[in-house]
């Protein structure tokens, strides 16, 4: 049972592959045309900005409609059972609307349908949570939300709902463990174990899916892997563990929370994990040629370095940044020169899948960011645009 036609989803992936081969000159244009004929994709085509915008405006419209109806039946909020029922009904109406769109307008992850999946799931979760007794603990509320969200994620293969399911799952563990006295100490270890187990489960599920389902769930499963690996690395990171531990610690009545988070148990172990986990990611990324591990390894090692700097600020920030910057430039430049020729299966030549437009835009935004920051760095604002508003800028030039 799938909300979208999984054969068409698979055809879509096939077509994209064929497009790529044609761009690379591996197949002829008429062959590509024949492939398009043989593998129809009736889905509606859309553009990422239209998807983004229509997602937001769909949420707005549904929110407006929900509030409108709620105004009409004003007193319902006071009656728990009725209000839970109302939210369940809203969810049902949204699902009905969603299926009408999918059936009649060939929606496939075009924005409005994503928004409707997310909102239908959210209203159902709301309904369930209203129905729970008021005394229900947070971990329980999160835990009962998981199957609801998971059902939506499995039926629609929608990545945001899948993320919500995963987030409630982790939140349930997180808040659940804090109920026990020893929970705070065990929390990092439990999170590491849970995220590893979940990663293993996801990989197992993936390998057992049919080919069509693997395509159907590709985004959701890959998101799940990213989240598990990020949680694993964060739960082992000294900074995260120490600061979170400091925040979660009970402060005796009448005392202020200490400014500096206190030392944690087993600091040496966490220092090792801070570097070990990202290093394993980087190793796996380079040996298995897996982009996710490469990126997480690089980010994790950067985070580990910042963690050291946070607790042992040996150098002033300016020198630290200068040195790290030089190191990064040097490493990247050497690697780029070295990989002019493909070596050990690596290359510097961009492949067809590279998000060129995305990279150009992030480059634009980051240099603008740097420009804006640099212009405002002068210790006293002698020219316009400072903290006193830009009033002074109208004169003198």
């Amino acid at each position, binding site marked *: 049972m799938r909300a979208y036609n999984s054969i068409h989803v*698979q055809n879509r*992936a*096939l077509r994209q592959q064929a497009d790529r081969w044609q761009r690379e000159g591996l197949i002829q244009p008429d062959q590509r045309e024949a492939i398009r004929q043989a593998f129809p994709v009736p889905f509606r085509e*859309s*553009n990422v*900005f*239209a998807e*983004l*915008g*229509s997602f937001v*405006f*769909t949420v*707005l*419209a549904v929110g*407006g*409609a929900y*509030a409108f109806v709620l105004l009409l039946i004003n007193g319902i909020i006071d009656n728990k059972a009725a209000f839970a029922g109302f939210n369940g009904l809203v969810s049902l109406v949204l699902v009905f609307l969603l299926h009408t769109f999918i059936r009649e307008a060939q929606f496939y992850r075009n924005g*409005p349908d994503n928004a409707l999946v997310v909102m239908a799931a959210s209203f159902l979760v709301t309904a369930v949570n209203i129905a729970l007794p008021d005394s229900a603990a947070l971990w329980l509320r999160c835990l009962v939300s998981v199957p609801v969200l998971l059902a939506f994620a499995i039926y629609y293969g929608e990545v945001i709902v899948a993320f919500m399911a995963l987030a409630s799952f982790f939140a349930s563990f997180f808040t659940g463990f804090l109920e026990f006295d020893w929970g705070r100490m065990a929390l990092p270890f439990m999170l590491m174990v849970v995220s590893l187990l979940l990663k293993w489960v996801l990989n197992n599920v993936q390998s057992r899916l049919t080919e069509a389902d693997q*395509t159907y769930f590709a985004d959701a499963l890959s998101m799940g892997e990213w989240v598990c690996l990020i949680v694993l690395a964060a739960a082992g990171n000294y900074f995260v563990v120490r600061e979170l531990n400091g925040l979660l610690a009970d402060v005796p009545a009448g005392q202020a929370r200490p400014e500096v988070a206190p030392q944690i148990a087993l600091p040496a172990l966490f220092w090792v994990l801070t570097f070990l986990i990202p290093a394993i990611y980087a190793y796996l990324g380079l040996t298995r040629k897996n982009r996710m591990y490469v990126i997480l390894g690089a980010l994790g090692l950067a985070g580990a370095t910042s963690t050291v700097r946070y607790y042992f600020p040996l150098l002033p*920030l*300016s020198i630290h*940044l200068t040195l790290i*910057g*030089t*190191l990064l*430039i040097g490493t*990247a*430049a050497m690697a*780029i020169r070295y990989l002019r020729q493909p070596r050990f*299966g*690596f290359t510097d*030549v*961009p492949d067809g899948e590279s998000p060129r437009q995305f*990279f150009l835009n992030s*480059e*634009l*935004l*980051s*240099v*603008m960011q*740097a420009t*804006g920051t*640099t*212009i*405002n*760095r*002068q*210790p*006293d604002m*002698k*020219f*316009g*645009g400072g903290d006193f*508003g*830009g*009033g*002074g800028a*109208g004169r*003198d*030039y």
Partner: protein
Amino acid sequence: MSPIESLNHLRERGLLPDEQAKIIADIEAKRPFSLHWELRSVLYIGILLLSSGLGLLIYENYDSLGHLTILGGISVLCAGAYAYAFRVRPPWSPGLVQSASPFGDYALVLGCLLFLSLIGYAQYEYTVFGTRYGLVTFVPAVLFLALAYRFDHRGVLGMGLTALMAWVGVTVRPLDLYIKTNFFDERVIYSALALSGAVLGAAWLLQRRGIKPHFTFTYLLVVGNLLLVALLAGLFNLEPMRFVFAVLLMGACALFDWYARQEQSLLFGLMAAVYGFIGLSYLFFTYTNPGFYSSTFYLLATGVGLVVYLLAYRRR
């Protein structure tokens, strides 16, 4: 779906001769793993860290002997970065130019960022521009814009535009979604409008002349947002002129919509929708004093309307 699975499907349906499928399978198996964008990102982050580290360093150690050495060192590095970029510069052409050297573009960005720090410090410490504070941002703006055209560099173009906006008193840091200025100040709003009008007009002329037409996207993205924000600011804050700003905002949104359709670039359609929605909602809630029913119904109606608007682009 893996490439091999795709190949199997195509072969099953007789869409690909076995011979060709074999060749493609072979290429896919041997395809090297591209680290292109990862390495570029590391290089970029390195440049941003290095330039901000050096930028901070300038303001430290005022009185120590090392200070002049640091300044001199940064100046040499800045000049070196520019010199390297010039040495490997691409040939001039009004069209899109691929840079010949892998590092030229990055050296240019580094040179520009260091120049910005140096010129700011020169004014701070030695007041080289006297009381003409605007020149601290205007000079780099002009330099960066010229360099952007010469080197065909959209990043440097964005830097030049950011400096130009700082010149009229608008601070922009897009990654923080940060735009700061005194939008209650009439003069700032009019300066921002005049600047964005002039820049967009120039961009339009340059595009028509065929000079770096691919820059128009950056102009519209950066300065277009400034224009729309300034129009909203006028609409919110300059009450006597509210009607004029409402009409101007509508006109600007219509122009963005037209351009989005012309160029099939939906980002600008989205901008028109979002800014138009904000302006319309402001007018609606200010002038009709809606009750709960009409407010919620307004959200429902405009939400549906805008979804339909955004999805309708496809049908052209």
